[in-house]
């Protein structure tokens, strides 16, 4: 299995290289600091252009620039930002990554617990009122755009609830770290938004997995032998049905770590998503964009691999080829 993991990791390297190169070529051909300087500062002399060329190697062709960027990125040097006063990108990136993790890690843990509970409940009481409620929630959660759900939470807690009760229990935007209470009340709504969207997908999958297992032959056998229902659920059903769910959770974890773009935008959260969208895309900052894109790519690959490994580890029937 170690050999399999290593082989998969090695196989992932060219994938990361090609996809980051494509992104690098795309963003650097779209964003041209020289042309921008020419437009914003027509009276600038050649020393200004030389300085830009020096900083970002703009006189080199894109593949060469990509290679020097990659060389830096591998050693932890993510280059210099164009939009944020020529600061180093790496410290900004890690700072923002911490803020994103503040949302994504708790959200992922909540999703894991709740999707397990909801899918077990739903499957054990199939076609009950509670099951219909859970299924209805999964349909709604999958159909609602993230930003719309975030806006709804903001309207409800920021305006309506305040109008009714005069209280405003949660911050509806930004990261506030003055006290533990402030921190908790500023993460509450963005985490809820992240949870709802992922929870819907995972619960839907989990319910189907539980139902599938519940109707399997070995459960019928156990029941026929007179095994108590409680033991059937805990020892037979859960152990088998959790295997596919664990792999889905690994992927959810990866998606949440890399994909809080929209939620962070709605809640003005100073994390990687906002860094990518506002400083990277809107301000045309290639090094900022590439730092976040590389991070998302690596996280996605690692957690997909983790999902496959977990599956094989938990289910002895799976053999790696």
């Amino acid at each position, binding site marked *: 299995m170690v050999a399999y993991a290593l082989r998969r990791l090695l196989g992932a390297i060219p994938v990361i290289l*090609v996809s980051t190169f494509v992104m690098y070529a795309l963003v650097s051909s779209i964003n041209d600091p020289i042309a921008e300087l020419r437009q914003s500062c027509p009276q600038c002399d050649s020393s200004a252009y030389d300085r830009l060329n020096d900083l970002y190697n703009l006189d080199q062709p894109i593949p060469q620039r990509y290679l020097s960027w990659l060389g830096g990125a591998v050693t932890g040097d993510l280059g210099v930002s164009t939009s944020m006063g020529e600061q180093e990108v790496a410290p900004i990136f890690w700072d923002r990554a911490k803020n994103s993790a503040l949302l994504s890690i708790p959200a992922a843990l909540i999703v894991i617990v709740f999707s397990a509970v909801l899918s077990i409940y739903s499957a054990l009481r199939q076609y009950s009122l509670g099951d219909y409620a859970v299924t209805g929630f999964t349909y709604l959660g999958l*159909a*609602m*755009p993230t*930003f719309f759900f975030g806006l709804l939470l903001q309207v409800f807690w920021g305006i309506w609830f305040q109008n009714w009760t005069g209280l405003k229990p949660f911050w509806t935007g930004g990261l506030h770290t003055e006290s533990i209470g402030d921190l908790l009340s500023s993460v509450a709504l963005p985490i809820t938004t992240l949870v709802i969207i992922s929870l819907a997908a995972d619960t839907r999958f989990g319910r*189907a997995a539980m139902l599938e297992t519940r*109707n399997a032959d070995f459960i019928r056998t156990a029941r026929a032998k007179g095994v108590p229902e409680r033991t059937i659920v805990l020892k037979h059903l859960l152990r088998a049905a959790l295997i596919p769910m664990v792999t889905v959770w690994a992927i959810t974890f990866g998606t949440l770590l890399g994909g809080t*773009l929209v939620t962070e935008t709605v809640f003005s959260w100073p994390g990687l998503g906002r860094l990518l969208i506002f400083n990277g*895309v809107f301000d045309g900052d290639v090094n900022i964009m590439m730092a976040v894109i590389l991070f998302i790519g690596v996280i996605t*690959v690692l957690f997909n691999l983790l999902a496959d490994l977990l599956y094989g580890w938990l289910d002895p029937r799976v053999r790696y080829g």
Partner: protein
Amino acid sequence: MGESAVTEANSRPQAMVEDVAFGDKPQSFGRQAWKRFRSHKLAIIGIFMFFSMVLMFWIGPAISSYEFDEINIVDRAQGPSSEHWFGTDDLGRDLFVRAMRGGQFSITISVVTGLMAAALGGVLGSIAGYFSGTVDTGVTFLINCLLTINSLAILLVLGVKFQMTPLTIAGLIAILSWYRGARVVRALVMQFKEREFVLAARAAGASNLRIIKGHLLPNVAGSLLVEATLLAGTAIILESTLSFLGLGVLPPETTLGTLINEAKGSIDTNPTRVLIPGGLVTLIVLAVNFVGDGLRDALDPTHELEQ
């Protein structure tokens, strides 16, 4: 996620078991699928919702006396009234007509993306599954690359520089998401190509193209259709997110996401301006997903759950 195979076949026994008595007239797969689809309540509700929205989006602007880009400063920023059913925006444009216009785009984008992604994924997936070896390695590599690329990031990068039309957005989303259909088709074709009917066709001298077209594609078409439907739903959400971030189509043209983006500043005074377009996006995706689920149960009774 090729290995995680959880069949849902047992979970809906009432839809799977056909009540066919021994002496009954045999039924084709298509007829049985249609019967299963018809008995799937949500799918019928989904179809009904989808087509009533199509009707509303295309007929609504015709019965309204306003144009979607007709500016009327005197009536600006009004709430819903009998004159302006959904109210007006900051330039006094009628929001009912604008919401209908946005709905037209969402529907168009979902249908075009679904069709294009299904075509791309079907062709590339079946080629990869059929001719293993170098072709398969190449397509699998492409699929893996697309997996690591965040679609929203690429759309944002392009959207900031180029003005998008609904068709270019649909095309881009299709190019970024065909791999999901391709994975399903590839796996199925790899199973089917070893089956006797394919071997028989090959023994009879059928060409590769003929085997793929005549024997393999019909067998994977159902799963591909299901995948395309689910993709159509994702495309609507992706497009509305893009325009919510202000990177959609060129004004005065509008989409549902653009309407939410324009209205989010006045959300505390006039929340209906956000609720109506947001609700419409949710309803369209809901309808499309209902139909997708119905199609899955009807066409692909032994399908594998894909993440």
